């Protein structure tokens, strides 16, 4: 087990190094220039050239790359070209909203998705199954921002129940924090729970048709015991896998949701940084998210052993 974890960690570092090189090259090859963004629309070419020089952007690419790697290794993620603040400060400022939104969405999606999926699989073709089909059709086929607009229009403008936009830190009160996150969570969670529900349904169906489940049923086991003792346990592995993999998709949805609901999270930070060509921020965030992704999947793999003791590493 320990050897396995060690091997995984080594490969994690390899993955992150690769992502790093890839992202660095990608950014430097893209046209666009932070100096031009700093100087503004009506700036002259001389002014922009001066700023470029000041920022060290005229140095040869290998020099910039080595400087960056050296800083990264010593734990220095760099300074934002625009905000003139350490990138890690900026990221930590934006972390709370994104983490809050992701966790709430995960909680909503897993609870709603898994329970819907189980019931739908249990009574295939029944009302819940039909509802699930309709629900996943909606969640699957309507872009997140359209759902967001409708939620805002109905709950915030028409009914005045919830705020339109913004984020309140959890430290300023649990209630306002939660109120500001309800709509974004719903918008993001709809598609996501549909996704999880479908995966759950499919894996449950698969397991329910296995011989041992049929045997249990024939022996007169209660449907509760069949669903939870036999089926869900075995269906758990694919469900968990999907949750791990879909982390990257969730971040994608977070970017859109943060834009629609004006939540100052990591997603907006990166999108703005890409538009501004604020290289240090883009590099750091992408490296950190990919590291996180790999870690989450490691955690998922380890969780397999808890759910299904037959799996050993």
């Amino acid at each position, binding site marked *: 087990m320990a050897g396995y974890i060690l091997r995984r960690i080594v490969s994690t570092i390899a993955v992150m190094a690769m992502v790093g090189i890839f992202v660095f090259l990608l950014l430097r090859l893209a046209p666009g*220039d932070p100096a031009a963004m700093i100087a503004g*629309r*009506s700036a002259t070419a001389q002014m922009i050239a001066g*700023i470029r020089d000041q920022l060290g952007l005229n140095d040869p690419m290998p020099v910039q790359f080595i400087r960056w790697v050296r800083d990264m290794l010593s734990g220095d993620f760099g300074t934002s070209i625009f905000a003139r603040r350490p990138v890690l400060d900026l990221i930590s400022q934006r972390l709370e909203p994104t983490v809050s939104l992701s966790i709430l969405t995960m909680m909503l999606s897993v609870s709603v998705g898994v329970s819907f999926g189980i019931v739908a699989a249990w009574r295939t073709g029944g009302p819940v199954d039909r509802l699930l089909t309709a629900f996943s059709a909606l969640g699957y086929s309507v872009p997140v921002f359209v759902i967001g607009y409708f939620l805002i229009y109905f709950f915030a403008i028409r009914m005045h129940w919830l705020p339109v936009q913004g984020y309140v830190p959890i430290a300023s009160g649990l209630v306002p924090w939660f109120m500001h996150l309800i709509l974004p969570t719903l918008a993001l969670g709809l598609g996501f729970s549909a996704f999880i529900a479908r995966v759950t349904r499919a894996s449950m169906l698969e397991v329910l048709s296995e011989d041992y489940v049929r045997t249990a049923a024939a022996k007169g086991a209660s449907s509760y015991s069949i669903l939870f003792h036999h089926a869900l346990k075995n269906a758990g592995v694919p469900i968990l896998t999907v949750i791990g993999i879909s982390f990257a998709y969730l971040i994608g949805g977070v970017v859109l949701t943060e*834009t629609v609901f*004006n939540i100052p999270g990591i997603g907006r930070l990166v999108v703005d940084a890409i538009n501004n060509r604020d290289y240090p921020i883009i590099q750091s965030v992408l490296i950190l998210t990919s590291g996180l992704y790999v870690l989450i999947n490691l955690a998922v793999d380890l969780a397999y052993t808890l759910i299904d003791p037959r799996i050993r590493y």
Partner: protein
Amino acid sequence: MAAGTALSFPSMLRAQTSPEDARTVRMAKEDLRIFDPVASTANITQEHGLAIYDTLFALDSKLTPQPQMIGKWGVSDDKKTYTFELRDGLGWHDGGFVTAADCVASIRRWGQVDAGGQLILARAKDISKKDDKTFTIALKEPLGLLPDILASASGQFLFIMREQDANRPATEQVTANIGSGPFRFNAALAKPGSSVTYDRNEKYVPRKEAPSAYAGGKIAKVDRVIWNNIADQQTAFAALQAGEIDFFQVPADLYPAVESDPNLDLQVVNKSGNVAFVRMNCLQKPFDNIKARQAILNLIDQEAMLRAMYGDPKYIRTVTSMFGNDTPASNDENTAWFKKGGDPEKAKQLFKEAGYAGEKVVILQPTDWASVSNGCQVLASALRNIGVNAELAPSDWGGVATRRSNKGPVEDGGWSMFLSDWPEFAMGDPISNVLLAANGEKAWYGWPKNDEYEALRAKWANVATSEERKALARKMQRIWWDFAGFVLIGQSVGPIAHRKTLTGLLDTPGGYLAMWNMQKASA
């Protein structure tokens, strides 16, 4: 149950909207990326400067320069030496006093980037402090426009910064955000990319005069102003409707929605608005040929372009003078090219005379700037209709900004045309406005060159009377429209939308937001 929830939700919300809200103004503003008004020409950065810094002179609503930080000033009999004395009560947000040394350093730093400032530095023999409150500018030859240039709002404002900040190179950003203006920057609450907060500067001593545009007494009447960067316009508007923000520069297509909301008002705070224009690359085919540029002058259907870019016909106007519609220099010299609906036949003819042989015409299209992006599409379609091989090059604004500095042919990543806009009132200022220069490769992107015109432009700072200046403007315009250094699309005056509870917003030339004088009635 449902009814119970419906009732309890609003009361929960009200619990968090406390009395301090009545003294706090929330605005949807674009992202304040750069804090240093010398390092960046961006409007939002200049507005940040207006909040926290003060200026020596300031334009009033009649575009006359008025002393702001200056108390007494005078000029020597030979008109070559100006002496300025700071008024009393000027203090930095960090507690120190504003001195003449701060002013001298600030003028020198600003003079490296602003076109008007460059002229002053070029003409000055010496800029130095006499004592703590007095400094002089000694000139090689008289410059009657000196106070106008110090007050100018058509390039970058001359904001006075602390000497230690102003001693940095102009290209290195100042990060201290310490000024002597009516608002203080709240560094603790600053969330770059998301929101910035300004607090009233209790120690600010305003002038006695009534406020008029950027001049007069700057009295901050609210305790706090928060600028929220709301990336999505639909969301920003929803927030305005719900009362979560008080102020929003609303896009034209939402004007009817604002008008139909009893809590909201549209207000024009920038009566002169902006002028949109097309810049052509005068160094490369086909626009290295004057005839091809004249073709564009004749081709453009200003009304159609304006409608596509700004929507509502109430707030748009065609423009024929290179100096804009309402500046002192505006005139009707050599404007026969203007025709309602444009003149595609004439344009086709001119392209033919220019020897146009189907070369690719690349139009830079910033997809993240909706109005200009729309204008590009209309222009491309008009060009194709007369047989020009027009191609849109879509990218984000960052991509446009980089590509437009490429002077090469389109095959080597160059460009042929791009669209942008400029404050209308600044069109009357050929000194500070880089758009009105035609000194070839030294000129702004597009690099038009005409020595005869440049000779006339050089006289601008020296003419004494407004009549002479008007005559000079006519001469300049006659030549300008012959070589077509740019082509105008028209003027747009975009009102802003605000909650009715927000009052006292000042009308400012150029439309830079002045946050003093506004106040908020408790709802």
